[in-house]
């Protein structure tokens, strides 16, 4: 079983603006936790702070390990994976390269994980040699999740994974998240699509103006 992500009294500031105040939550292994709130509620800031891309105060731990003071790179190595809003795949790299780039240093293990990622997202298989910018939004979302999967993380952090996607593609995203969750990973999804959150979440947490309503 993977480790749980525990966030305790996290405060995130962007200069003088406080984006998140004293947020506490737990994303449990084998479960999908949805952080639901409107645009500007602080969801993205919270995820960016967890992965170390935004500075914050408070405690973040992964299993028994305190990762609050770690660099972003160290947090990823400790077991986090981040799928940002807007996917942010590497447009000039091929689909295969986008997946391989976050894989382990051992070439054989990297190839094996590539095959696993393509098994989870078979639509990417015929596009393996295409550049990422040539993919549709839905395919790019699959690629972004697949890229995170390559690191075999304990915890997935996904920011608005359904933004701009067609309903059929949203179903595919939901199915892939359930599959990852079933493998034992903890999944924390920031989402303003309440319908999607209701469908997939084992636990739903509301965030309003930077404060968590029901921790």
């Amino acid at each position, binding site marked *: 079983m993977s480790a749980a992500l525990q966030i305790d009294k996290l405060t995130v500031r962007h200069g003088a603006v406080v984006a998140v105040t004293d947020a506490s939550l737990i994303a449990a292994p084998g479960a999908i936790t949805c952080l639901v709130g409107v645009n500007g509620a602080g969801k993205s800031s919270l995820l960016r702070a967890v992965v170390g891309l935004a500075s914050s105060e408070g405690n973040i731990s992964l299993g028994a390990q305190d990762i609050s003071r770690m660099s972003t790179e160290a947090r990823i190595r400790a077991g986090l994976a981040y799928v940002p809003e807007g996917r*942010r795949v590497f447009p000039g*790299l091929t689909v295969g390269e986008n997946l391989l*780039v976050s894989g382990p240093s051992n070439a054989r293990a990297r190839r094996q994980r590539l095959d696993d990622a393509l098994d989870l997202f078979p639509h990417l298989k015929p596009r393996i040699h295409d550049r990422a910018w040539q993919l549709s939004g839905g395919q790019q979302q699959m690629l972004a999740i697949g890229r995170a999967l390559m690191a075999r993380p304990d915890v997935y952090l996904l920011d608005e994974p359904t933004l701009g996607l067609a309903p059929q593609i949203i179903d595919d995203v939901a199915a892939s998240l359930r599959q990852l969750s079933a493998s034992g990973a903890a999944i924390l999804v920031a989402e303003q699509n309440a319908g999607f959150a209701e469908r997939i979440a084992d636990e739903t947490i509301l965030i309003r103006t930077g404060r968590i309503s029901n921790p």
Partner: protein
Amino acid sequence: MLGAQLALNAVALGAAYALVAIGFVLVLNATTAVNFAHGESVVAGGFAAVALAMLVPAGSAIPGIILLPGVLVLTALLGLAIAALAYLPIRNRPPVSVFVTTIAFGIIVTNGLNAAFGAAPRTAPALLGTGTIEFLGVTASRQSLAIIATAALLIGALAFVLQRTQLGRQFRACAQDPEMARALGIRLTRITLLAFALGTAFAGAAGLLLAHQFFVTPSDGAGLILKAYIAVVIGGWGSLRGAALGAMLIAFFEVGVASVSSQPLAEGLLYVAVLLVLLVRPDGIFGEPQRLRA
């Protein structure tokens, strides 16, 4: 046949310029900052070759190709020094800070070389000996052919690393989206150091290649960084392939114009041509959409 010989000279000059321009882009892509000490790194490579050749007992000539690994190592270390002293401590400051620190570093290199070697032009050994060889009726200088072969080998090796290895994939990912690369666990500082080491080593190799045919003086850096800059601008900002093509265009322009007039006029007209290119195509001749570089 004269045309073929001129073309060969242009390709040789372009190959050396391409090494300079590619080295410039490697650092640019890893940092989004312009390393203004890059021209001095070319000069340092030339003087490294001069210094290494002086270590050989008097009377025995050593081919430049034997010195190449030493020049690559020394200039790679220079690149690491530029990164450690002029880039990493201020990487989160506005880009103009890096301009100033790298310009300052370049001035230190120039003055250091002046103090060590004097201001007079020096020459490095030829790569594989001097003289000419006849091929299909064309008389080609050994040095020109050796420059082309050496540059092709270095550029080919770089292309292999960038396209076929995990390190190369990480390098290109950092060039396209550094924050996302970090969020995948890629060590950005390590990639940055590598970019400075590789980019400066490429500049150093160009210095060795150019220092036999054109001599080298400590103050040559400004002209060389300008040519690298022009190659990158007309080739498309951040594109390695564009930088090489831009460098080749510059060399053909210089050799072509100089063959019917003079070198100073060729250099002057080069800047006129660049202005005209940028007026017509602001993204450069081979400019590509943003973030598709490397």
